[in-house]
């Protein structure tokens, strides 16, 4: 019985142009489309491929969020996950708290592989996977673009600033996914119907008995300073003249 645990975060859909609320208390989320964090979708796809190749027997999707997060977990089940766990939390949970929640579930489920997205496209923190690996005292392979499993180990190609880096880790381990690891499958209608019958357990954050109080205080949200529109030139001669005027060539 080898399990894979996958984290799915509910975030504002990546196609939505995010706007800051006029009072600076957050971004506009009312009536905005919510989706699975794209990097987490890649994590789930990788888990499903590992299972399909015989590298695991069960894929469990986990989310921490409000009750509505069931929608994203159902999508995960429709993609092919076997069951889902929602840790219901109505307030935002910081990455360290999320890592503690995952650790708690790991203690119960004992997975060999934990797959998370490399970052949430809302907070852009890129922390939870690394923090979980630290608390679990297990290896981390972040920003993975290729994962090869063999004999209780994984060889992982990572996208780093300088190019590609390959490391080998012993299992169990935490993996975070980069964009080019795979292309997630589309969900088909019959799978959506089937997903409705798959188990989705809900536990409350409070019932886990963890210290998940936020450490940071967000004082305000602001729209970024916008660049002022520049000039249009009509040919290469004018372009070079404009560059010279700015002392750039």
């Amino acid at each position, binding site marked *: 019985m080898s399990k894979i645990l996958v984290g799915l975060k509910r975030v504002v859909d990546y196609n939505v*142009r*995010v*706007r*800051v609320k006029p009072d600076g208390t957050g*971004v506009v989320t009312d009536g905005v489309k919510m989706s699975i964090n794209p990097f987490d979708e890649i994590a789930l796809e990788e888990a499903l491929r590992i299972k399909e190749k015989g590298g695991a027997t069960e894929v469990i999707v986990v989310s921490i969020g409000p009750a509505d997060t069931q929608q994203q977990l159902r999508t995960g089940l429709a993609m092919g996950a076997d069951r889902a766990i929602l840790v219901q939390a109505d307030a935002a949970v910081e990455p*360290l708290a999320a890592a503690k929640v995952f650790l708690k579930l790991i203690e119960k489920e004992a997975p060999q592989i934990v797959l998370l997205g490399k970052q949430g496209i809302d*907070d*852009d*923190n*890129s*922390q939870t*996977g*690394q*923090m979980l*690996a*630290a*608390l679990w005292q297990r*290896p*981390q392979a*972040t920003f993975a673009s290729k994962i090869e499993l063999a004999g209780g180990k994984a060889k992982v190609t*990572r996208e*780093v*600033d*300088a*190019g*590609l*880096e*390959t*490391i*080998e*880790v*012993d299992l169990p381990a935490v993996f975070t996914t*980069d*964009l080019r690891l795979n292309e997630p499958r589309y969900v088909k209608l019959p799978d959506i119907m089937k997903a409705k019958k798959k188990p989705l357990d809900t536990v409350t954050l409070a019932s886990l008995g963890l210290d998940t109080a*936020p*450490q*940071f205080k*967000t*004082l*305000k*949200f*602001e*729209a*970024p300073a916008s*660049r002022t*529109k*520049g*000039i*249009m*030139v009509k*040919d*290469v*001669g004018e*372009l*070079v003249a*404009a*560059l010279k005027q*700015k002392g*750039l*060539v």
Partner: protein
Amino acid sequence: MTKILIVAEHAGGKLNAATAKCVTCASAIAGAQIDIAVFAANAGDVAAQAGALTGVKKVLKIENAANAEPLAAVLAPQVVALAANYTHVFGPSTTYGKDLMPRVAALLGVGQLSDIMAVESAYKFRRPVYAGNAIVTVEAPQDKKLVATVRAASFQAAATGGSAAIEAASVTVDLPVHTRFVERSAAATGRPDLQTAARVVSGGRALGSADNFKIIFSLADKLKAGVGASRAAVDSGYAANELQVGQTGKIISPELYVAVGISGAIQHLTGIKDARTIVAINKDSEAPIFEVADIGLVGDLFKVLPELEKALNG
């Protein structure tokens, strides 16, 4: 008193420029004492470069064969051991720092502040969220150590000319053996590094093929510039992954950014917002890239680029 430890990033005996930017960020905190830790098998050259950065008081060398490669699982417990003497621990918001620092924070039992773009005080900072579409002001608790990463594109590199004390430091912690380095493959291009280049020329989907992308390299060489690419160009196989500029690639702040055949998707614009001057060349006059460009030219890139190279010769 504010005491900040910066974890140096380096490769091949060279200090990464992002470290000098962390020093500038740390220097913006009034009265802070700034030390740098260099983890390496042999830290000599890198420690000397770190010690030359203005504003640094002390450089700690932690030399150990296990530190030859930057494995987060191996480095994190060592950073934690050193952190006892500091109020803040900073690292660059590069793939190196993003991998390492959250592991450090969790071992210390504290959260992390990612991507500092501005300092308001020792415990108050500004950082981007939602791919830079919102900026938040965040307050960290003063009764805990603050672990943070510094967004390199938001700070200039600290000047050289300083002469910090360089000391060997030893840490006695058990290092895990469950994570092993295998190899690194980076194309040696001889061009300036994309992340730190003063000038960058990037190509987009309109280039149409990997072969056509050569004219981007050619213009870049003419300008002594680094080369970047849009996500569309990378996904289409015209350019290597590590050249991708944008939210999911590299965030850069060159003096001059030339976007060729790039329409300007939000995710790309996020990566170039801090460039000093943006030049856009695109045949579609409605392309969103022109909204942010300082100088825009509507035209066929396959005509414009050869002309431009010729004009730069003259």
